[in-house]
Each structure stands twice: as C-alpha cells, then as structure tokens.
C-alpha cells in the first residue's frame, strides 16, 4: 500500500512536483503517465527514499519515508530510470552483490537467484559481463535486481524505454505475471503500453496530477469523441450531404478538395464505431475510397484535453 499525500519538490527555481497526491492499494498496478520531464521520476525517487519531499508525506505500508527510510527500502524493489548497472561485473556477481546488500544469504539467496533467473529469462547470460549484454538483457537484469528480495512493492521507472517490440512484450508479460501478488507502479510516456497491463493510471504534467482513474473513463471524459479521417474520389458537396444524414456522426468538416477528391475530418461519440457504415456508404455510391481511418488515440490528445480541462476547472479529474 502506497499513500502519497501532497508532496512537492523543487530543484532551484524549477518546480518538479506541486502538491501531488495519490493512493495505491495492495495488489494494484498503477501506470504512471506523463511526458518527459513531467515529474514522474522525481515522484518515484521520493517514494523510494532517494529524495526527500520539500512538503507532504509518503507512507509505504504505513511507514513514513522520512522517518524510517531503511524500512521502506527493504519493502521496495526499484528499477531506476535508465536502468543503472555495474557494467564491470558479471550478471552473477551483480545479482549476488544485490542479494547480499538486501540481506539474503545461503539457501534463501540461491532460491531467489534461481527464481529471478527463471522469471526474467537471464539463464543464458548469467555468466557474462553486463557490459556485453544487449539492451533487452540489461533491462531484464535490472528487473531481476528489483525482484531479487521478493519485495511486496515494485517501482519501475520506464521499464520498457528503448526496447524493441518483442522485448516490450516480454517485460509486459513479466509484470502481468506478478499482478495480484505485488503492488506495482510503473512509469511510461506511452499510453499504449499501459492498457495491456492495467487500467489504473495517474497522469502527471508539469509536476501536477491532471488525472487519476481508469484509462477508458479518463479518455472518454477527456476526449468525449473519436476523430476519423475520410478521403474519397467524389465531389465534396455530394459527400457532405450523405455524411450529414448518417446518425453515428456528430461532426463533419471538409479538410480539402481538389481534382475531384475530397477529404473530411469526422467526429463520432466515443465507443461507437462508424467505420463499417462509412465503408458501406462509399460502396453503395461507388465512391473510390482513398482513406478511412481513426485518428490515433494518443496520450498527447488525452493529455492535452485533460490539461486544458484541469486548467479551466482548476482541479484534478477523479473518475
């Protein structure tokens, strides 16, 4: 259980965190979202006791991070940003070092080593120097480090950054396999990485929380609608008339028209899918379909919508 209450942190004149609060129950997975420089890492550094907040408190399992930092550290497995490792060591030496530093020894250490080697898939590189590993294996070694002492709480700062799609899936599966047993916070700036793992997100921007809730609800609330692009080889006026007659659409806007082609931006309420309807229409009228796609549902859009809203309302969106 992690409870962050009103933490603020500034570095010189820069405000990194401004009155940030959120709460995470045992066994929950939280996606911590925000653009680079939003304050994600700073918040994680405070939870892991690397930094102290200027104001506010953080309690991990009810233990205050300022009062008993060593207690808190013992309960947390932490993968810092950029996955720092001792390049000069072998994977084995490195994990044994971390194990000893975490107070593991003898049989317990061997058991845990066997477990992380298996869970993180690092058996093939176990006796290799870390500097010779690929980025994916380095990341797994970093995760093995965080999992070694079987912590109840995992804090992963951008665990998938810089990995290729297959490696990202590997990390995602590892996180999913821990779901339910462990309380996990992981940060990312890519919304698509959150949804396969969890639907609970906290979105942060410029050091402030702009949203806290379920992804779907947040997006729906923030965006209200889907945007689509439609390109046809047909006159704009004829098409517009037909489009406005469709009931699934809430907005029709002509983007460009040239050489008998026209291109529209359409709006539809969230959750509805007007693509089949549009396709059918084009077939019936025998308009050559040049483009038909949903505008990608991006963090940026949700984010821009949420920040704009939160600025207007002056409050955080709780869903």
């Amino acid at each position, binding site marked *: 259980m992690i409870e962050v209450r009103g933490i603020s942190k500034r570095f010189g004149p820069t405000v990194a965190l401004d009155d940030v609060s959120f709460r995470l129950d045992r066994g929950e997975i939280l996606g911590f979202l925000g653009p680079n420089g939003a304050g994600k890492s700073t918040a994680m550094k405070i939870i892991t006791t690397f930094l102290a907040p200027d104001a506010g408190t953080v309690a991990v399992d009810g233990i205050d991070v300022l009062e008993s930092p060593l207690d808190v550290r013992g309960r947390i497995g932490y993968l*810092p940003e*950029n996955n720092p490792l001792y390049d*000069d*060591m072998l994977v084995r030496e490195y994990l044994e070092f971390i194990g*000893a530093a975490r107070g593991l020894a003898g049989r317990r250490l061997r058991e845990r080593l066997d477990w992380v080697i298996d869970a993180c898939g690092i058996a093939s590189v176990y006796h290799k120097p870390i500097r010779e590993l690929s980025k994916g294996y380095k990341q797994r070694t970093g995760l093995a480090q965080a999992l070694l002492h079987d912590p109840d709480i995992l804090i992963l700062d951008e665990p998938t950054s810089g990995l290729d799609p297959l490696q990202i899936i590997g990390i995602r599966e590892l996180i999913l396999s821990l779901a339910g047993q462990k309380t996990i916070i992981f940060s990312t700036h890519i919304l698509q990485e959150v949804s396969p793992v969890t639907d609970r997100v906290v979105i942060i921007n410029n050091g402030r929380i702009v949203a806290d809730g379920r992804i779907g609800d947040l997006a729906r609330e923030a965006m209200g609608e889907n945007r689509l692009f439609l390109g046809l080889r047909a006159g704009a006026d004829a098409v517009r008339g037909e489009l406005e007659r469709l009931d699934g659409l809430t907005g029709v806007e002509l983007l460009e028209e040239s050489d008998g082609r026209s291109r529209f931006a359409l709006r539809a309420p969230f959750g509805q899918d007007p693509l089949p309807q549009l396709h059918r229409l084009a077939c019936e009228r025998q308009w050559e379909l040049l483009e038909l796609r949903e505008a990608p549902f991006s963090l940026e859009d949700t984010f821009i919508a949420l920040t704009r809203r939160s600025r207007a309302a002056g409050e955080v969106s709780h869903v």
Partner: protein
Amino acid sequence: MSNVKTIFRREFAAYFNSPIAYIFIIVFLVLNCGLFMTPFFLQGMADMRDFFGNLPLFLIFFIPAISMRLWAEDKRSGTFELLMTLPMQTGEVMLGKYLAAMAFYLVALAGTLPIPLMLLALGNPDLGAIAGGYLGAVLLGGLYMSVGIFTSGLLRDQITAFILGMLACFVLFLVGIPAVAATVDGWVSGLGSFLQNAFGLMPHYQSLGRGVLQLGDLVYFLSLTGVFLALNTLWLEGRKY
C-alpha cells in the same frame, strides 16, 4: 557491519576488474622504488628516510587517483541511485568504499616491502623507524583518501574530483611546511604557525617517520580523517533535500 563488507567486496573487486589497477600499482612501485634506489648505493645508508620523505608529495597525486572514482563514477552511471535505495545507511556505503580504496592502496604499499627486506639483508637498519614510517604512510594515505572520497562525493566528474582532491591534499601538505608557515606569519602574524600546528601534516608525519609513536600524531591523523569521512556522509545525506 555486514553491509560495509558487502560494499567493500564489490568496490575492491571493481579496482581489479580493469587493467588500470595493475598499471597503477606498477607505476607506483616503479616510481617510488626507482626514486629510492637510484641514489641508494651511492649513499650506502641502510634506512628508508628518503623513501618516506618522498611519499607525502607523491601520494598527493597517487591517492586522489585511487579515490576519484568512488562516488563520481556511481553518480555518472546512475548506480548512485541504486546504492542510495539499498536498505543500508549512507555511512555504511561510504565506509565500504573508503576501506576498499584503502585496501587497494595497502596492496600497492605492500609491494614496497622488499625494500626493508633488502635492507635487512644488506645492513642493520633501524626497524623502529621503518615500522613508524610505514605506519605514517598508512595514516597519511588514509587522510589523503578521506579528502579524496570527500571531493569525489561533491562531483560527478572523475577528473574534476581528482584535481580538486589533489589541490586539497596539497593545501594540507603546504600548511605544514615551516617555510610556508613563516611566509603566512609574515602576512598575518601568528596565522601561519597556527595553521601549521592545527592542520599541517608534515610535523606529525615526520615524527612517526623517526619511529616515535606519539598519541598526538595518531589523534591528528585519525580525527582529521574522521572529519572528512563525516563531511562526506553528511554531504551525501544532504543531497536528498
């Protein structure tokens, strides 16, 4: 204590994980023993006074080169964050690192032991003075090392940490030189001799080199070393805020 040991083992091994350690030790031995042996047979004296006499100046370069990586390397690579989120006190990590660097220095220093053995074979040296000299070399190295680990903790760049450490050691060395003390006395009456007595390391080092074991000298080296180690820990703790 087991935490100190864990850090010590990792840091000590780190010195020998790169070839620089071996080059380093060889340079240390070649320069030190070379400087000592060149006039040795001309003078025909069975003592190590010249050897220990060179050391304070020589270690000003050598010790900060050992200590420069202690924190700066971790800060540069990000492993500093890893260390500072392990369930151990900052002081334990610091002590593990300091002792590892000292152990490395002692390995290099142990490489010079053939000299006293040779002296024993060739003549009849004053073993007390030699033992005192070695004790002085250890304490002096320990003091320089504490200055070096302190400057390494201030910075994330090893080279800057090296230069700053060297300068700081050099100042400690200079204030203990009578000529410097006299010059400073000329500017502000009494200041030079005060600094010489309070902080200068040469008087203490030289008395150890004569084989005279005085409590005051031990207290000087150990307390000043302790001060720098404590400052180092405080600084690293303070960075949280």
